[in-house]
């Protein structure tokens, strides 16, 4: 096992990784920008190194500074958390080149799965179901239009190098196709320096369901069930839960099997997530693989009892998976709510500032992961995620009741500070959500409804 691990991240996930290291008896190094000098992880870590100014490019995205900090502190491994450099194959490569273990998949696996067309090709070869669409990038507009016709409208045109809801167009009608095609290519070229695009069937009503997997370096791979992340605002997840409500167990079991197959086919290592969309007829289609731990990993931990960060670290240290697929016995229901420092009444504008009061909820079957504390100044430079509240219960109704109790208890106050806690409660009490009849359009519906109501 490693003696010292460098945590190349900030916020709640940095604290989460630190806790896992501490429980494993591993010394921790926190790297931070000038902006995060007083952050929770810096206070908790055994050592800390200031690696740059506020802008992420010069600090949390500054591979050179992070590698140098690892050298200075004698760290043997780097945990990238999520975001920042966590899915950067070059960073993974530099780590290995510098004699550091990158806690994640090998660089080439990240590279392949990070390229949408390459990932689609690999998964289709592994027999995973894909939305009808192109495997290879399209070459000319005529071929593209022909394919779109075969697929059937509406279709979506996506940049091969894209992601995060950028560089894509939904086309409802054939007459719009060629214009949208050219436009998307242009966008992709300017945005990503890579004009390759592909086209696939567009699903208006769908649910976002993902499978958590773990793979060791000895060909052992398991899945830890699914997460439903359909409650999103502009592709930002707000609420995640497991199991996926209303989906047949056989369906999610099958999704788990194919995810494991896909992982083994690509030589995956560590913790990863296979994203699928599920249509109204319960057909599921592979979307992409996330080569990192995810924000919502705690709901999986809550029902399985498996500490995913600890597993990541053990696998990276060369240990074998001690869990078999049979050992994974999910129990009950877990829901996560993301409490962001944003003002829902002002289009979710971030409200950075000082937290004069900060009292997270507590009590039975409740978990809070946060880097917040009374007196903490939430910087404007980074993500608005302040805390994750995770509630467990034997069934979904009780889990929702527990989460609503917890959100009500959460005290966060400071000049100009607003949070999404109340809005999350609004979502939880929405009939569509309560009856699990919602899809990815839920939040938009709620916002429209409330807007008209006022």
């Amino acid at each position, binding site marked *: 096992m490693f003696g010292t691990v460098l945590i190349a991240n900030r916020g709640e996930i940095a604290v989460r990784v630190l806790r896992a290291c501490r429980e494993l008896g591993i010394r921790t190094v926190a790297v931070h920008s*000038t*902006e995060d000098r007083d952050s929770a992880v810096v206070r908790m870590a055994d050592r800390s190194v*200031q*690696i*740059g*100014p*506020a*802008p*992420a*490019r010069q600090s*949390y*995205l*500054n591979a*050179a*500074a992070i590698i140098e*900090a690892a050298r*200075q502190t004698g760290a043997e491994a780097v945990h990238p958390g999520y*975001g*920042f*450099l966590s*899915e*950067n*194959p*070059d960073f993974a*490569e530099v780590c290995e*080149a*510098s004699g550091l273990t990158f806690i994640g998949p090998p660089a080439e696996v990240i590279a392949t799965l*990070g390229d949408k067309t390459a990932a689609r090709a690999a998964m289709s070869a592994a027999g995973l179901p894909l939305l009808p669409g192109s495997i290879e990038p399209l070459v000319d507009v005529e071929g593209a239009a022909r394919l779109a016709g075969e697929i059937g409208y509406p279709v979506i045109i996506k940049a091969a190098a894209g*992601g*995060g*809801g*950028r560089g*894509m*167009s*939904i*086309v409802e009608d054939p007459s719009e196709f060629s214009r*949208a095609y050219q436009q998307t290519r242009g*966008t992709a070229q*300017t945005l990503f320096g890579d004009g390759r695009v592909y086209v696939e069937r567009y699903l208006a009503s*769908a649910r*976002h369901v993902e499978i958590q997997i773990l793979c060791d370096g000895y060909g052992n791979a398991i899945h830890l069930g699914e997460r439903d992340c359909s409650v*999103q605002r*502009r*592709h*930002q997840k707000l609420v995640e839960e497991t199991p996926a409500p209303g989906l047949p167990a056989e369906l999610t079991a099958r999704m788990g099997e194919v995810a494991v197959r896909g992982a083994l086919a690509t030589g995956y290592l560590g913790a990863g997530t296979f*994203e699928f969309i599920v249509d109204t007829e319960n057909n599921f289609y592979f979307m*992409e693989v*996330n080569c990192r731990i995810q*924000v*919502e990993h705690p709901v999986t931990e809550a029902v399985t009892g498996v500490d995913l960060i600890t597993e990541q670290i053990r696998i990276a240290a060369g240990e074998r998976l001690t869990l078999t697929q049979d050992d994974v016995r999910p129990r009950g229901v877990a829901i996560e709510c993301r409490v962001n420092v944003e003002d829902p009444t002002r289009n979710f*504008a*971030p409200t950075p500032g000082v937290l004069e009061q900060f009292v997270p909820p507590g009590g039975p079957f409740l978990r809070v992961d946060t880097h917040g504390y009374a007196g903490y100044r939430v*910087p*404007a*430079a*980074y*993500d*608005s995620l302040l805390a994750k509240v995770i509630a467990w219960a034997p069934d979904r109704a009780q889990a929702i009741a527990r989460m609503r109790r917890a959100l009500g208890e959460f005290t966060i106050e400071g000049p100009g500070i607003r949070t999404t806690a109340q809005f999350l409660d609004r979502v939880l009490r929405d009939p569509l959500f309560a009856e699990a009849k919602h899809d*990815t*359009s839920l939040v938009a519906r709620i916002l429209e409804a409330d807007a008209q109501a006022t």
Partner: protein
Amino acid sequence: MSSYRVPRALQNGFDEHPDHEVIELRHNGLDEVLAAVRQTAVELLAAAPQSPSTLTVRAGTVAVEMTWETAAAATTVPGAVLAPPVAATIDAGGGNILAASTVGVFYRSASPGAAPFVKEGDHVVPGQQVAIIEAMKLMLPVEADRPGEVVEILVADGESVEFGQPLFRLAAVEA
């Protein structure tokens, strides 16, 4: 070396926030908006550390989606590369301090045994090299950003320094 190629994650860009999911997005003059945001990001980055996030947020359009990413967004400006920050010194507390502009190892001379670039009592001029910081086997010159007399050298030769760590104390001199 490899870390100086444009990392793919940065080309994909905007992935500082981990959880964008692509399921539905109406097509509404996307690239114009993006162009505007990119432009803003570039300008803001040129300016001081924080503000970009808050500023672009106030736009209240699709652009809101992108504000959290500003720091990363800037790195996607075509031609951006992941290189150690240039070694122009920054000012950390008390206008008379030359501070480290990167994490690394501090060297007072060009090579072991060679004479130090500067010693206490020396007068330096803007742009004059006063030390080296080695980061990832790159030798990055540390240069004075203003005229002054070296009154104190705050770090020993060969010591590790972090970003913003004071290296030299200067005293103002008559121009």
